[in-house]
């Protein structure tokens, strides 16, 4: 797909979202609609410039390249790990799940030497434990373990 089509889709998406915000805010009482309608109206207006710019600078030779290799998508695997980590904090405990996140996360990202991972875990987790538990008295999630 040419890049200018991608830009046009972005501009049209912003216009669609802004239109939704405009319509949804109409029922807000006590002048509560003013800021949402001002911002969405302005965003629609500015998006027209983006749309105009996309077609004025169209160049069919510049294509959007989709790279599905592991190296280009490992951040999304990390994100998926985070989505598991947040509920896991409450099931198995904050410190155990953080320990696992640091190790698995580093491996996903591509660290193959255990030395930097071990040093980071050994320094950061006890420091975090001492700081949050003893100094701040923060109530961090506790599950089956700590």
């Amino acid at each position, binding site marked *: 797909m040419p890049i200018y089509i991608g830009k046009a889709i*972005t501009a049209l998406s*912003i216009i669609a979202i802004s239109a939704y*915000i405009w319509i*949804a*805010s109409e029922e*807000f*009482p*006590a*002048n*509560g609609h*003013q*800021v*949402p309608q001002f*911002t*969405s109206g*302005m*965003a629609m207006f*500015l*998006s027209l*410039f*983006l749309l105009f*710019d996309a077609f004025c600078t169209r160049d069919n030779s510049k294509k959007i390249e989709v790279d599905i290799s592991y190296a*280009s998508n*490992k*951040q999304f695997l*990390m*994100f998926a790990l*985070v*989505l598991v*980590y*947040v509920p896991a*904090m*409450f099931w198995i405990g*904050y410190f155990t799940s*953080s320990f696992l*996140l*640091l190790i698995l*996360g*580093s491996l*996903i*990202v*591509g*660290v*193959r030497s255990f030395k*930097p*991972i071990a040093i*980071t875990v050994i320094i*950061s987790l006890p420091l*975090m434990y001492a*700081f*949050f538990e003893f100094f*701040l008295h*923060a*109530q*961090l*999630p506790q599950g089956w373990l700590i």
Partner: protein
Amino acid sequence: MFIEETFSYLGNIITIENFLAMLLGVTIGLVIGAIPGLSPPMAIALLIPISFEFNPATALILMVSCYAAGIYGGSFSAILLRTPGTSASAASAIEGYELTRTGQAVMAIKVSTFASVVGGIISGFVLLFLSRSLAQVALWFGPAEYFLIAMLGLTAIASVSFGSVTKGLISGLFGLCISTVGVDQFSSFPRFTFDWIGLQAGIGILPAIIGLFAFAQGLELCAGQAHGNISGLKTLSWNIWPRLSEMWQIKWSLMRGWICGLVVGIIPAAGGSIAQWIAYAWEIRRAKPGDNFGKGEVKGLAATEGSNNGVTGTSLIPMFVLGIPGGISAAVILGALSIHGLQPGLRLFKNNPEVIYTIMWGFIGANVIMAFVAIIMARTFAYLTLVPRGVLGPLIILFSIVGVYAGSNNVYDIWIMIAFGVLGYFMEKYNFSTAGVLLGLVLGPIAEEGLRNLLIISDAAPVSFIMGRPVSLVIVFCIVVILSFTFTRKRKEKAQTEGKSVDD
């Protein structure tokens, strides 16, 4: 007579008790400020129980020291990791992190320390000598002025958007729009909550800033090469003391930052979050050929760092003299003042001058001590830039999550932060301004409240109302000047780029 009286209280801070209070306040402030998610108000609140052990002056010195250091501490993580510890250091993440990436982390720390320490000291002297006269300025600001100040801040978006101004403005409008999410304080009507309880209280600035900057930065680090570090260095220099000759080269940038901080600090509810962007926009407007704004420009960092600590002293003026807290930190200090049996206002200056002036001297002393503690701590923090990217990415993500949770004990804030993180990652990728979103989010409540109050008191005729207020007209003039300069600069840049491509 007044100056002699003021100086007579200087000796009060030279006691072991007051010195330890300054040292403790500064150390705690720096550590908590540097951790994304933990804010200076939280640090000050934590110190209230400890402060019961001290007399009122020492207790308040402990808190104002923590406040000053907390604002500066946020810059460590902003500069070194692009994860601002506080909202007042978000602008420093732009130039500061670019300097770190080009192996100039120590230079960035030097500039940041000098700008913050001297800014804090100047602000302290303004607090000490001009507080009574400047406090009246705070009373000039009504709904019209608050609305216009927010608009002035928004014009900064146009200046700080590198690349497309249109995308920058859309980002700012988006931030402004999402600031309306949650139960409306005027009507108690839920806006854009989609019946999800996590959005009822609105979108907090802290989850948003951590998501947009820290979490997104964590994902960015995970996306790149796992080996190698962000600074590209193997060792760090120990040459960490700022040299006057180096600082002399950026003297005007520092001056502009300090002035901006001092002025904006007096306005209640404005604070460092706004001052830094105005200072940064001002600095970009003054850019000369060869300046590298957006790619690691020391001048930009000097202005943002000078402004956010320039705010600290003057933001205490409305609180001490009028009892109007200028921000959350000042509100917590106000609470501590009451707990220690002191009532803010001119009576405090009349009945307890030894207490109030000792606190003010303590604030200045804390900024001096901060220079020494900060330089050691910043150097230690700088080791993080030597950690492999593949380990640092997950570590930043972990700190983002624990910081948000420890700050609010609310799991919904974690999800909001993650959503902002993903948004920030893609915005950076497609050249939309994350700084614009943050600025819109910070200014949104001030703008909306100002606008709605303005419409009520002006009988829905805001323009004629604004025309009759001199302070409003001055702010309108500033907005027009900033916008005209910004568009002139962008036109020149465009013309230069087109000229270059023709030459090529």
